[in-house]
């Protein structure tokens, strides 16, 4: 960094010396020098510019380079912090917003650190020294010539701000266009069914025209700004020519000085503009840094602060809810309402109920993705917040309805469960998840890359990859959150039977829409509006003849219908 600034100063010094050298060349011309003298003058200029080039190379490397390093470190730091933040944070921040902070804001900070700093140093050095030399040559002319220049800075600052606003408006509008196209493609069937093509075209046309207007508004600003910048500089040059020319004629300065004077004036144009630019960069950088700090200062609420036990803590697998009430951050509705539930170690529990009844909320608390508002969740009789998070999550594993798969190979996705697993262990879980036939059909077997979010797999395949991944982790509590919804009936019962025999002594919690499946569990809870409405074995619940029994019979009928039609 220091080297960079030294190199920068050297560049400026060499840059300032060149017009001076030219001045002496021109002044000496009147005294008809020898060719040798001219050659040495040329040599001097060449030498000076060699210094300039070398030191310019130096500062580019030494000032832009560290800015890049800072950017990398900041991004790494940010990413590490992202990894430590908890689910409540992610629930309240959209991925798009965080992405834009990690990319756009980070770039703004980098630009300020690299470019901003550079321009600042450069501008100050060049302005001060060029002005000094100009004053040295002729103070009065300097005064007149400088008069228009602050206008440039002012102009620049103002316009950049306005242009920035205009650009923002254009961006907002472009995202409107994007959403319309996106919605059109997503809802193309509905649109075509209702013959909405022409109407959509009209809407699109309107958006597009407004977009042109917004763009042209920026163009107009820019169209005024950039020529008026050149205009102001031209005026300075004109003043220099006129007043400076007169001064030269009056013998107040030599012709060489006049030429050098013009040279320095030319050098001033960029730093003058640069000052306006650097103020703008600084503002942007400060706002961006603020946005980054918002994330960097966020602390995970779900943390290990209450943990007393050491890491060797062993989880056996009983789970208890004691008058637990819970609602999601920013939600106006409680998701769990005073829930009491005991799941003994090794038991198999079925949780049923409609969408929004609170089934998944219950699961989220067992995984401690959130902490409850009131009440306690206990594992093996110990409050869940006293168990180290990594121990808890190594032993309590969930398979989701729409599992998240990473764009890696199938093997790597399964190995998320246990990275030290060997081939035979992986093959064993693949078999248990009923995946072996599917994998054999894939071009590279287990090593097939599955694309972003696992696009190349069907819904049922994704669910079974997630199951294999969970089985590989060897959990003490396994949670299947509607994890077989995309499987057909036969495959589902096959896989379930396999799991039940494999996971002897493991607590199993099965959330499902299909009561036929829930029936196979040791006991069942029926949830509604965040409460446990009915609870017991299948037979008990059927005898109660409540909502469970009603739903069960409805589903049975639908099943029979499907069977009849097969």
């Amino acid at each position: 960094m220091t080297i960079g600034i030294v190199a920068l100063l050297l560049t400026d010094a060499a840059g300032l010396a060149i017009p001076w050298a030219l001045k002496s060349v021109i002044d000496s011309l009147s005294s008809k020098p020898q060719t040798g003298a001219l050659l040495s003058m040329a040599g001097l200029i060449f030498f000076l510019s060699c210094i300039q080039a070398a030191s310019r190379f130096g500062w580019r490397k030494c000032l832009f380079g560290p800015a890049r390093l800072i950017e990398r470190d900041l991004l790494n730091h940010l990413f590490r912090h992202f990894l430590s933040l908890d689910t409540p944070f992610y629930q309240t921040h959209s991925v798009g917003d965080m992405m834009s902070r990690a990319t756009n804001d980070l770039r703004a900070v980098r630009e300020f650190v690299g470019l901003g700093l550079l321009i600042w140093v450069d501008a100050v050095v060049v302005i001060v020294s060029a002005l000094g030399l100009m004053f040295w040559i002729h103070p009065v002319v300097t005064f007149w010539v400088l008069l228009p220049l602050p206008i440039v800075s002012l102009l620049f600052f103002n316009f950049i701000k306005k242009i920035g606003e205009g650009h923002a408006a254009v961006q907002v509008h472009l995202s409107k266009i994007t959403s319309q196209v996106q919605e059109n493609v997503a809802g193309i069937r509905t649109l075509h069914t209702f013959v909405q093509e022409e109407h959509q075209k009209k809407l699109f046309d309107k958006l597009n025209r407004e977009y042109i207007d917004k763009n042209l508004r920026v163009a107009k600003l820019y169209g005024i700004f950039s020529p008026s910048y050149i205009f102001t500089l031209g005026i300075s040059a004109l003043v220099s020519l006129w007043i400076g020319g007169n001064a030269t004629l009056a013998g107040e300065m030599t012709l060489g000085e006049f030429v050098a004077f013009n040279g320095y004036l030319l050098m001033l144009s960029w730093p003058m503009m640069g000052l306006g630019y650097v103020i703008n960069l600084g503002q942007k950088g400060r706002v961006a840094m603020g946005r980054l700090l918002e994330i960097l200062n966020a602390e995970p609420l779900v943390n290990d602060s209450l943990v007393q036990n050491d890491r060797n803590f062993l989880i056996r697998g009983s789970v208890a809810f004691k008058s637990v009430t819970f609602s999601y951050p920013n939600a106006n509705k409680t998701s769990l309402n005073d829930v009491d539930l005991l799941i003994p170690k090794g038991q198999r529990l079925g949780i049923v109920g409609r969408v929004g009844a609170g089934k998944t909320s219950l699961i989220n608390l067992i995984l401690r993705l959130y902490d409850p508002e009131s009440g306690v969740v206990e594992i093996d009789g110990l409050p869940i917040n006293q168990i180290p998070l990594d121990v808890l999550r190594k032993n309590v594993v969930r398979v989701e309805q729409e599992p998240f798969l990473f764009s890696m190979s199938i093997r790597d996705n399964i190995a998320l469960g246990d990275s030290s697993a060997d081939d035979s262990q992986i093959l064993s879980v693949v078999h248990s998840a009923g995946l072996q036939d599917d994998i054999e059909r894939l071009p590279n077997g287990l090593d097939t890359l599955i694309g972003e979010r696992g696009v190349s797999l069907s819904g049922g395949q994704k669910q079974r990859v997630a199951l294999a991944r969970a089985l590989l982790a060897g959990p003490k509590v396994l949670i299947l959150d509607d994890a077989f919804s995309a499987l057909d009936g036969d495959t589902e019962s096959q896989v379930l039977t396999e799991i039940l025999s494999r996971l002897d002594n493991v607590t199993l919690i099965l959330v499902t829409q299909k009561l036929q499946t829930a029936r196979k569990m040791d006991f069942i809870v029926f949830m509604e509006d965040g409460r446990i409405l009915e609870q017991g074995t299948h037979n008990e619940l059927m005898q109660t003849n409540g909502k469970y029994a009603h739903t069960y019979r409805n589903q049975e009928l639908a099943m029979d219908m499907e069977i009849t039609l097969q």
Partner: protein
Amino acid sequence: MKNKPQGESLEDRYLDWALFRRILSYLLAFKNWVILSILLLLVVSVLNLAGPYLTKIAIDDHISVNKIEGLDKIALLYFGILVAAFACQFAQIWLLQWIGQRVMYGMRTEIFTHMHRLPFRYFDKNPIGKIVTRVVNDVESLNEMLTSGLILVFNDVFTLVGIFCVLLFLDWRLALVVCLIFPFLVMAAKAYRVRARDAVRKNRSHVSRINSALEENLSGMTLLQLFGRQNEFYKKFSDANEDKLHEDMRALHYSSVFMPSIDLFSSIAVGLIIWYGGGRFVQEEIPLGVLVAFLQYLQKFFEPVRDLAEKFNIIQTAMASSERIFELLDTPVEIIHSQIETRVKPVQGRVEFKNVWFAYNEGDYILKDISFTLEPGETLAIVGATGSGKSTIINALFRFYDVEKGDILIDGCSIKDMNKYDLRRQLALVPQDVFLFSGSILDNIRLGNTSKEMEEVTAVVDAVHAQEFIESLTDKFDYQIGEGGKGLSLGQRQLLSFARALAVNPGILVLDEATSSVDSETEILLQKAVGELTHGRTSIIIAHRLSTIKHADKALVLKNGEIVEWGLRKELLRKKGIFYNLYKMQADR
């Protein structure tokens, strides 16, 4: 290894003149404006070059000969030139943007229109994001190329040529001396361009790698935390970050060498001029003003050289975008018969399928020889297991896809002979998964028919029993529905879909019943609404609920794409087949 061919094809694209011509053809409609813009550029370049020349005159004719009169005139002329340059430059910038925006507007409209004419098969195959990128981002980067790349290249070229002409005019011998450094300049620019392009391209691929890693990790954060894989993923991420840094540094290195090297060339030229020109001045072959002007022009000469090297890279990126745009535009569209004759008479509602065969993939028939007739006002229930071809019947009726063999007739007229828009105006579909658009409830019910009166809408809403829930919303009909219908329950979305279908008062109603269960009160509402919808209207219902079957006039049982039972409900019940069994199940409850 894998990326190599792609890199090479990028190189080819760079030289693809056919593609380039096609891009230029979009400018053709604005031919005169483009020429005007280029002329303005020329004027601006010339005016910008006039400054140093005036300085020369001032020095030669006034300052060095001590002649004060006339200097004012030169200053005035200079001022005039500045004002003219200002005006021309403003006009030029604005005009260029205007052309760019117009071209972009035309192109976007063309793509959007084209997109709506593409066969559904295209949408089956291409992810949404890809299509959106074509219409929005690719057009944007093409615009970038037109406005800040292609035409501005003229600017640089003009300036270069202009300066060189002035130099030649001032003194051809000195100009030739400057020429000595040209070959080196060209070599340096070329060496830089090739390397910088490579670094920039690699950098871009690392950036997109980082961005997708970021996006993926943020989306799957809970999962990777649950499996405790923070360290592993951090390692992967920071590796990508490191790779990007490497390319950043490489690009920085190239520009750090190239940019100062241009300065060096510039001062070599200055040195040569001082040595050679100074000598000639001493021998009184040239006046001092020429020498000063020469030195001033030389300083301006090297800026366009720097610029041109950068601009080639912009143009190249845009070429890749344009190729993707043209690929979409070249996808063949479906023909929509444009003769408007059928729409005059209101539809009676007779539907006939005549030996219809259909396959999504050639030879793999999903519908096999389907024939049935529905008289005006009748309700048909279609039942069948998953994958038996129920939805395909709808797709064929709406002509989302054309049937392979056989024919579908509405009121005795083949749908193939109808204008596709007219056909669909007679039909209304209530799909299984309701698609709601972002906007108000009202917009979602009447869609494009904004002329529809509020009373009509209220009547429709009343008829399908949706008024109660709409009244309960904060802004009632103006309630803003979020993306994908967020904030509304399954049942509410169904009711809205019913209202939407009834609002167009279709001759024929097609209903694909939702499979997912709703609570029993909503279920009753939905059943009532279905009764209202089908009343006195030819209706085809894909039935998932036994209760629906009860109200049908006719029924059709599908199995593996074939009809196993078909006829009047009463007849089918007498036959005691599959339909009878289903019906009995319902009755047994």
